[in-house]
């Protein structure tokens, strides 16, 4: 099967990006250096092509009830022009995907992981009745994330709308060069100031927006940022990555997503199972750790406590900001205390690590 490409493919290629297969898309993992791209976002502003993400519109008279049943967070708390981080679970409480829900007044838009688009759509269609319309608009939607302290300064030069009052996890309709753009104050980098822009995936349109962004951002040394730095940026804030830190074998409570799991809203898919988990207590927990040493841990490495296996690493990397090796791991509840030490088997070498509070940086 040939890889899918986003509308920015030729731009990535011309920039000399290293392209990799990510969830069936030919995506830029880095342009120049993961560390440099990471620091560009932390210090100024960076742009990510994340058009591989899936977008699904949910409309119809039954849309609210449908989403209230489908997702773990409470849709009744989601105001028009608001964005909500949420998850959908199976009946066992296993996480099918994590997602963003946009309240667009007359409909909702869900933003889902690229690797889960087909799975999520068939799951959603199974749950929907005739009062709900589900439209996959992934292929017709481009998505750029503009992240970092100067992102607002860049966008205020080119968006036909005042963004200074746009609150975290809200969005507005704007335009760039006359092209309609949904501007959302969200992101996956941990930056307090960051935006995600949704617009038509028409190649000319998309390339125009990229060019306008980079022209406006040149005074801030704006940089293109690949998926490699997207991963290290999100890990510094301990944001969970689907497929690494959570999947259908993990429930939201042990994954640390209790805060988006609103059992008080009434029944939803998986709520009974999750409720039972809460009642009996979790057996393992996703924790953050910092390694004492220069070998980084990676996904799948085994974790020990006093010589006995207690879990496994789900994400690990050098933190470019801390210059320390950080990561996330599932460990037995008894070994999950902040300040405790664990050992990680790094290809036969045992490295000591301390369990720390997350996020790793503020």
């Amino acid at each position: 099967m040939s890889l899918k490409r986003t509308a920015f493919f030729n731009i990535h290629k011309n920039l000399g990006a290293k392209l990799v297969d990510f969830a069936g898309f030919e995506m830029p993992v880095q342009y120049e250096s993961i560390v440099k791209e990471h620091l560009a976002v932390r210090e100024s502003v960076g742009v990510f092509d994340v058009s591989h993400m899936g977008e699904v519109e949910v409309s119809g008279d039954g849309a609210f009830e449908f989403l209230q049943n489908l997702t773990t967070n409470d849709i009744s708390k989601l105001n028009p022009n608001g964005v909500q981080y949420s998850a959908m679970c199976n009946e066992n409480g296993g996480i099918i995907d994590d997602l963003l829900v946009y309240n667009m007044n007359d409909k909702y838009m869900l933003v889902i992981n690229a690797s889960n688009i087909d799975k999520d759509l068939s799951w959603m269609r199974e749950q929907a009745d005739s009062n709900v319309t589900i439209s996959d608009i992934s292929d017709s939607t481009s998505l750029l994330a503009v992240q970092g302290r100067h992102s607002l300064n860049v966008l205020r030069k080119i968006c036909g709308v005042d963004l200074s009052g746009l609150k975290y996890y809200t969005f507005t309709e704007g335009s760039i060069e006359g092209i309609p753009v949904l501007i959302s104050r969200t992101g996956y980098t941990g930056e307090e100031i960051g935006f995600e822009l949704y617009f038509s995936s028409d190649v000319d349109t998309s390339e125009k927006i990229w060019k306008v962004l980079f022209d406006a951002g040149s005074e801030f040394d704006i940089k293109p940022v690949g998926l490699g730095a997207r991963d290290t940026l999100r890990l510094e804030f301990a944001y969970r990555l689907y497929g690494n830190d959570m999947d259908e074998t993990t429930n939201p409570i042990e994954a640390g997503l209790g805060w988006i799991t609103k059992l008080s809203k009434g029944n939803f898919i998986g709520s009974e199972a999750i409720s039972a988990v809460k009642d009996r207590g979790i057996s393992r927990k996703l924790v953050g750790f910092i390694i004492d040493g220069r070998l980084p841990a990676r996904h799948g490495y085994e974790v020990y406590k006093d010589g006995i296996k207690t879990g496994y690493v789900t994400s690990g990397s050098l933190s470019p900001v801390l210059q320390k090796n950080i990561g996330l791991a599932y460990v037995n509840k008894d070994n999950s205390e902040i300040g405790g030490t664990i050992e990680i088997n790094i290809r036969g070498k045992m490295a000591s690590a301390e369990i720390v509070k997350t996020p790793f940086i503020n």
Partner: protein
Amino acid sequence: MNIPSDLKYTKDHEWIRVEGDIATVGITDYAQNELGDIIFLDITSTLGDSIKAGVELGTIEAVKTVSEIISPADGLITGINEQINENPSVVNTDPYNEGWMVKIKLDNKFDRSSFLSDSEYKELIGI
């Protein structure tokens, strides 16, 4: 992509520079580019170790991935570039000089013709 003509290469994307009976070994420009930002060189062999071609000498850690350093020849380890870990990015910026990794005193069975030339290596990586 810089593939100097005065070096020999291996299929493991390492280069070897032979001066007298000492071989200096590192990873190629292609390899450093594939690995991305280098963050740590972990040579597990120690000075004076007798090693065989094909054995793992240690690993090179990048932000996204890890790769083995394979001995290209039989001999004794006579040098390990400890400086790399002061500034690991030197492997990215200068893989053939400052970014060298180990020195091996070759035994007398060393056969230069078993390595790839620069043009053969370029063919291997498709440039």
